[in-house]
């Protein structure tokens, strides 16, 4: 089997002077990436095979050198977000059994006086001139380790093997048409599966990847697209929505030549799809659905003439998806394929999520007659109210139709009469003068009886993960305490 390393070496020989990675203040050709990553690899000679080395970097060429160096050494790269909380950092280091943390210009005083026996080294100390033989890398060796973001539970380690990576990359490339001609732009953190997938796709095809560090800097994104004649842009739906709201006139011109605009892991609002389809004169807007544990399991290329713009697409090649335990056609999404992990890292508590090569995602969804998959919510979010199953995500969608409401999270809480009832945590728009009773009145008018939240709590902010996702489970546990 070819690994990402084999392909990188191939590009290094065939297109040595071509830029592989470009950042704000640096660039690396394929040859330079190959040479520098070998130096990094050599500094890891003392580590036994399959050891874990943690990386904590902003998006940079040095991250890419370190990541590839670890893979070349036959070790596993544990990728950490620089914005990680201290508690999460300590948990991941302990759970991963990582032996070394490599970083650059980041403060690690928080690791002192803890029971984590991990060495911390700066990137510049990791480039060795000594030469060692390349180890044999097997397809089932772990290449990298990411932790789930913890929106529904504590983080879980997800070890991705070399064969997982190659399987997924082949699907990305065949469905979305990436090639060595692409100049791709990613403002996504490389510590996230979406961002890391963009890097690996580029290294697989031999294209050029431009890394930015701030997805909120919309001007920088648009300037970079123009400056480098970018052909593909990867962005989360929030970035796409912000671009439309604040730069609508500008993006009509500056995105029109993109070949591909790829977003991720969630349904994109249909009106946003429609606007971007108009802007992308000859390009495609696409999304995908997957978990870190089952990367890129579906792909959706949006078409104007089809009425399926809220779908996350069809299963990726050689990936099976089935809907289990249906209730009114909606059930839990199960996925099987070579993109699916076998178990969590050093954690057997959730092994029931895996069954005969299937992963039970905990996501709810359904297929339409044409085989397009739609997401409906999370299984563990379902609330049984007097025998009626309610999807909090549906209730949230209806409440968010009130323009005074910026964000809402619905959770279930115990109720003496109904068994469970709903509680709404509501963040209002800054100018709003809405009262709790106004929100309740809106719910009574717009929701079925059993879906009306019986408690409303106004909040200034929600607890979020490092990636900005709301920690729903924390709200649930807070509600249970009350």
């Amino acid at each position: 089997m070819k690994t990402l390393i084999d392909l990188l070496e191939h590009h290094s020989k065939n297109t040595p002077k071509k830029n592989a990675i470009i950042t704000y203040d640096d660039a690396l050709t394929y040859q330079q990436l190959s040479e520098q990553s070998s130096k990094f690899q050599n500094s890891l000679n003392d580590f036994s095979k399959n050891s874990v080395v943690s990386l904590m970097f902003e998006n940079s060429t040095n991250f890419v050198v370190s990541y590839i160096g670890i893979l070349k050494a036959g070790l596993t790269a544990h990728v950490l977000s620089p914005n990680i909380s201290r508690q999460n950092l300590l948990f991941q280091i302990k759970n991963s059994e990582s032996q070394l943390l490599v970083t650059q210009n980041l403060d690690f005083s928080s690791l002192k006086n803890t029971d984590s026996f991990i060495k911390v080294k700066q990137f510049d100390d990791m480039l060795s001139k000594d030469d060692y033989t390349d180890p044999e890398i097997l397809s089932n060796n772990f290449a990298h380790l990411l932790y789930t973001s913890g929106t529904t539970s504590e983080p879980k380690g997800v070890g991705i093997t070399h064969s997982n990576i190659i399987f997924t990359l082949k699907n990305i490339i065949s469905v979305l048409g990436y090639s060595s001609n692409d100049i791709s732009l990613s403002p996504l953190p490389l510590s996230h599966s979406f961002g890391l997938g963009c890097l690996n796709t580029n290294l697989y095809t031999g294209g050029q990847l431009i890394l930015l560090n701030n997805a909120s800097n919309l001007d920088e994104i648009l300037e970079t697209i123009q400056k480098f004649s970018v052909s593909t842009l990867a962005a989360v739906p929030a970035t796409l929505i912000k671009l439309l709201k604040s730069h609508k006139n500008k993006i009509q011109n500056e995105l029109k030549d993109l070949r591909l605009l790829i977003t991720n892991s969630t349904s994109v609002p249909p009106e946003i799809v429609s606007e971007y389809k108009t802007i992308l004169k000859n390009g495609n807007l696409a999304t995908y659905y997957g978990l870190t544990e089952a990367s890129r399991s579906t792909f959706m290329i949006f078409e104007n003439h089809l009425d399926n713009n809220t779908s996350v697409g069809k299963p990726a090649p050689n990936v099976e998806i089935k809907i289990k335990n249906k209730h009114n056609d909606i059930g839990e999404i199960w996925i099987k394929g070579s993109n699916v992990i076998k178990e969590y890292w050093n954690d057997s508590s959730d092994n029931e999520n895996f069954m005969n090569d299937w992963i039970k995602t905990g996501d709810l969804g359904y297929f339409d007659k044409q085989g397009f998959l739609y997401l409906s919510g999370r299984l563990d979010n379902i609330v049984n109210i007097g025998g009626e199953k309610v999807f909090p995500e549906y209730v949230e969608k209806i409440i968010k139709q009130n323009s005074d409401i910026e964000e809402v999270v619905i959770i279930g809480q115990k109720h003496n009469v109904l068994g469970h009832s709903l509680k709404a945590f509501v963040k209002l728009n800054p100018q709003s003068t809405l009262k709790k009773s106004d929100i309740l009145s809106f719910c009574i008018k717009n929701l079925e009886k059993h879906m009306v939240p019986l408690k409303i709590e106004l909040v200034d902010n929600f607890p979020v993960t490092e990636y900005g996702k709301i920690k729903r489970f924390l709200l649930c546990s807070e509600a249970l305490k009350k």
Partner: protein
Amino acid sequence: MKLLSDNFDLEKEIKNIFFEIFPNLSLSEFDWNKHQREYSNWDSFAQLHLIALAESKFNIEIDFDNSINFTSAKDLLECVKSLL
């Protein structure tokens, strides 16, 4: 000191809650003593919505016993009064 106007406003608010939960209830049909069984759609959800609206409007918590025992607008009015 409680004023007569306080009671008037309170009664008006409770009436409004009933008109909101029972949109087909006309002004002439409203009666403080009208019993739950005389409403065509006063089911357990309507009961809970009446309580939830009263709690959110007056910023009060109605306990479980009170919440299952009231059977008229007058009962809810008295319950709210006792908590203010």
